């Protein structure tokens, strides 16, 4: 499989066994995201956006179908190998920030670097550099509860991109943020996408995000309804 795609899926299905009838959350999704794309997946609640992101990130296994990340088929990997793929190739940003509450902003941001075995001085340097770029200077030693929602989400973005993954998956990253904070966060992600070539795939129903996406994919009932070049 070619490496020109950051993400590629073929006939991807996720069915949850449930009574009285299994739930088909994702139904035959074929998706291709090129390196460096800034893609938004939109759709109503229950359309399967989060499940698709989870499948792309290897956080859950497909019922059938295949997922390639940078040409590596991940759906048949062991848990350990999947963890390694996530560590080296994928960054996550969650709707509710999900910072580790016992770690400071600095420790949260450097977490992936630490897993990658980057030496402490290098980790600190990279975090400080990025923090100054995204307006988190001076927040290094704060624990998450001492940060605002916007600051927490920026730390989460820093954590996602610092390991220099090929792909960042963001699940409704602006959902809990006010307009100004959401715009600022999008600026940060756009800048990272532009400057570092990081591929972003969002799930969202925030029009601000959709507007700025390079491509908009609409999901309805677990299927891709259409995929169109965005205005961003």
């Amino acid at each position, binding site marked *: 499989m070619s490496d020109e795609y950051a993400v590629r899926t073929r006939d991807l299905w996720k069915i949850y066994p449930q009574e009285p009838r299994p739930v088909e959350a994702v139904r035959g999704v074929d998706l291709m995201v090129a390196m460096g794309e800034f893609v938004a997946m939109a759709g109503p609640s229950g359309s399967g956006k*989060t*499940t698709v992101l*989870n499948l792309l*990130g290897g*956080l*859950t*296994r497909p019922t059938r179908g295949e997922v390639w990340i940078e040409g590596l088929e991940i759906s048949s990997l062991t*848990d*350990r190998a999947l*963890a*390694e*793929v*996530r*560590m*080296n190739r994928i960054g*996550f940003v*969650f709707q509710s920030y*999900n910072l*580790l*509450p*016992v*770690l400071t902003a600095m*420790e949260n941001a450097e*977490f*992936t670097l*630490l*897993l*990658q*075995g980057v030496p*402490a001085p290098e980790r600190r340097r990279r975090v400080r550099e990025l923090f100054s770029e995204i307006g988190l200077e001076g927040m290094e030693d704060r624990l998450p509860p001492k940060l605002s929602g916007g600051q927490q989400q920026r730390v989460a973005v820093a*954590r996602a991109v610092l*390991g220099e993954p090929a792909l960042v998956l963001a699940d409704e990253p602006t959902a809990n943020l006010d307009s100004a904070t959401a715009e600022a966060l999008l600026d940060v992600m756009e800048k990272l996408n532009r400057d570092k070539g990081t591929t972003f795939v969002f799930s969202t129903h925030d029009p601000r995000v959709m507007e700025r996406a390079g491509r908009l994919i609409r999901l309805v009932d677990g299927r891709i309804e259409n995929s169109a070049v965005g205005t961003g």
Partner: protein
Amino acid sequence: MPKHDGDIWRRIAWRNLWRNRRRTVITASALSFAFAAAVLMIALMDGMLEEMVSNGTRVVTGQVQIHAQNYDPERSIHDTMGGRGGLDVAALMDAVDAVGGVTGAAPRVYGGGLVSTGDESAGAVLMGMDPAREEGVSRFGAALVEGRMPGPGEIAIGADMAESLGVGTGGEVVLVAPAADGSTGNELFAVSGIFSLGMGGFDETFALLDMGSLQDLVAMDRDRIHEVAIAVERTGDAEAVADRVEEAVAGLSEGLLTEPWSVFQARLYFVTSLAAAMNTMIAVMIFGMAVFGVANTMLLATFERRREFAVARALGTSGGAIMRIVVIEGLFLGLVSLAAGAALAVPVVVYFHEFPLDLSRFVGTYSMMGSAVRPVLTAEYSWDGPLVSALALVATGIVSALYPAWRTLRVPPADALAGR
């Protein structure tokens, strides 16, 4: 997976431990009390066992004995050390005295006979001994309720025997005893003292004589003795001292047998070993119960954090590392509890060691396996009990964490993130 700084897992585990301070304090308190209870109980049990062993061996027998190989179990008058020719007793005693860990050694000659006065008579075990040396081994001297230890031509008898014979200090008794040469020895002895060991068997049947006097009575040369009773500093060291004594006396005569009290007081040894095994069982039961309590707490703690673990896994943390965090947390809980438990247990153990609780108001002295046990609650210092309890405590923390950790890993990260 690349190597990384393991410090992060310890940091996360330690901080997690104190996130819910109240819960951690309550759980650690439960473990600390379990530890303190186990240590105190073992120390008190050890105190009782030490009392039993001490009374069982320090009153008469000593903790190590040397005999002729064929002396036990018949204890024939003819089976003296070194055979019928005997041995150099002074050299033997010098060799024993020089062994490290020996605090006293006393040579003895035994015979059996009839003690009579007027119309009364009693069968007796006659023990010929050296009063000065007996002081370091047995408690006859300390148990004298009247008079003094016997010199040549004198005898000291137990209080019960004195009562049945109707004789006191200054009185006279006739001893009739079969001698080693086949004749029957008989002699008049002055009662120099009366002892009371508080143990019926000895007070009723034991009679002490100066060693030379008994040897004369039973027609034995001065270099013929039946036993050397040896006292050691710690009863627990008896076996090691016995080995050293055996080595030290090996060149002095053929056929010498050196045995620790665990051999010649086998029943007492069995009972104390059983009690020690029970100590371990009770400690296991205490911590076995604690495991469920702590596991429940850890289960709650990890269940509450399943989303965090899922996030860590989403970022690339391996299952092994997640497991490590939870297990290290259990280890820290164990160590914190250990520190608190030790702070609780040590002063109590020291108190009961220094100031034994006298329960004689409620219970009288009782005898177990031929050993008098005073009704005194005393704690004995030992490393074994606290060490086993400490290991059990830390193991409790770790084992309690394993199941919750395993449970955490079974849930796919996406499900945990979605709260499923």
